[in-house]
């Protein structure tokens, strides 16, 4: 049986709903470790409040944040999967049905950039990035709602044959600019290389990597480690009111390019919203995060 419009509609809506109620386990773990390591008393307390809020949301089935953002999806279609029906339409309809039925209702965040009017629908919403997964027997779906803190502070600049130092300096400049405003401690994603659009996507995707995973590229593994220390040496701290914990992780991806080298930096706020699941042909939705 192929994956149908109905299955896709149900699954994408479900992922969005899950993402609003649960802070991922790796993130909770990282927050707990940070609280133990913090030397600043206000920061320790703030991290405690964040953890309590996450726990209440999960155990009482409530929204972690009232800003449910706008839905973005990263979808990889396994080459072993058959599809049937309007799969793109299914995601749009799933979102439409969700906002009409979910409890509590969501605030209207979908914004027409030309008029600043806000509603539940808009052109090209939800935003979807499509990918192919060779040999896979399922569709891999990641949902990452994007709000101000997880969207506003992203930036990209194109360099020519940059040194690692130039790249690291640029990341630090972005961190300084965001300062206290993106609900730290944040997850920082960095993309290096490729082209303008590809690099931005790499940075956004890098924020999806769980904390504690090691970069397979040794140059980047070392860069991630020293950048995390550098970011936390800035002192902005949890919620930007001071402390040792400004970021919980720096995740970097790269790809070959031409020598004009884009560097993109993206942030995800402390709640690190993301859910991921595999959808199989029999309709099974296996939640991974």
């Amino acid at each position: 049986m192929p994956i149908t419009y109905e299955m896709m509609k149900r699954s994408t809506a479900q992922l969005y709903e899950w993402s609003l109620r649960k802070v991922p386990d790796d993130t909770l773990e990282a927050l707990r470790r940070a609280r133990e390591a913090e030397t600043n008393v206000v920061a320790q307390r703030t991290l405690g409040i964040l953890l309590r809020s996450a726990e209440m949301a999960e155990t009482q089935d409530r929204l972690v944040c009232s800003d449910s953002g706008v839905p973005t999806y990263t979808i990889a279609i396994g080459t072993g999967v058959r599809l049937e029906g309007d799969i793109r339409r299914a995601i749009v309809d799933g979102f439409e049905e969700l906002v009409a039925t979910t409890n509590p209702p969501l605030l209207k965040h979908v914004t027409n950039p030309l008029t600043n009017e806000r509603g539940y629908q808009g052109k090209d919403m939800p935003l979807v990035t499509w990918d192919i997964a060779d040999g896979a027997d399922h569709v891999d779906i990641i949902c990452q709602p994007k709000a101000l803190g997880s969207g506003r502070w992203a930036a990209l600049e194109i360099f020519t044959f940059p040194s690692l130092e130039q790249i690291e300096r640029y990341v630090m400049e972005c961190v300084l600019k965001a300062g206290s405003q993106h609900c730290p401690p944040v997850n920082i994603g960095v993309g290096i290389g490729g082209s303008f659009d590809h690099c931005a996507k790499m940075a956004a995707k890098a924020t999806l990597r769980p904390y504690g995973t090691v970069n397979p590229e040794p140059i980047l593994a070392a860069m991630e480690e020293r950048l995390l220390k550098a970011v936390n040496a800035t002192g902005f701290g949890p919620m930007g009111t001071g402390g040792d914990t400004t970021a919980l992780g720096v995740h970097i991806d790269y790809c070959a390019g031409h020598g004009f080298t884009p560097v993109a930096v993206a942030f995800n706020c402390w709640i690190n919203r993301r859910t991921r699941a595999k959808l199989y042909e029999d309709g099974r939705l296996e939640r991974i995060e």
Partner: protein
Amino acid sequence: MEEIRRVRMPLSREDALSLHAGDMVLLDGELVITAGLPTCQRLAECVEGRRELPRPLDGVGLFHLGSYSREAPGGGFEVLYMNPTTSTRFNALMPGLIRGFGLTAVGGKGGLDAACVNAMREVGCVYFSFVGGGAPLLSDAIREVVSVHWNDLVSHYRLVTLRVEALGPVTVGIDAHGNSLYGDLSQAATDRMPAIMAELGRERDEAEHMR
């Protein structure tokens, strides 16, 4: 952990002056909230006398908090949840509102700029930092929806007055004496940058030697 101080809202000028940047407090009493830029633009028009104010705002606490409000089955309004929004996007409007209404407290998340800090010092007003992503915790402190104005706007933009009990803890991000954690932290981070870059360079060299 020592007991967290509780303060009554709206703050008395005396209480506002007694708070210092970095203090953590719990809030009891009435606050006025909105997450809307159009709302603050309307309030600015009220200050200039170009629009009628829907409720008096003299000396109140006005916060950048967004909420989902709806008409309750038994009449009146209910708020299902609330959470702060980034204050810096209101930077341009806040000095006028702080002075115009003589606000005793403002707040949200992420702080306000130097022009706001000046207005706050002049008037005797503090900034409270609420945790973003704290909706369950913050919403549970709501005891009553006192009023909801400007219902023509989307829910989180409306001007909502709430009665709360033990809301927080919130951190005093900016006090009425001109101290701003945000200004200080940003300056400190900028000052530290050369040392941070030097350390990155040292570690980069080390990593290269390891390879």
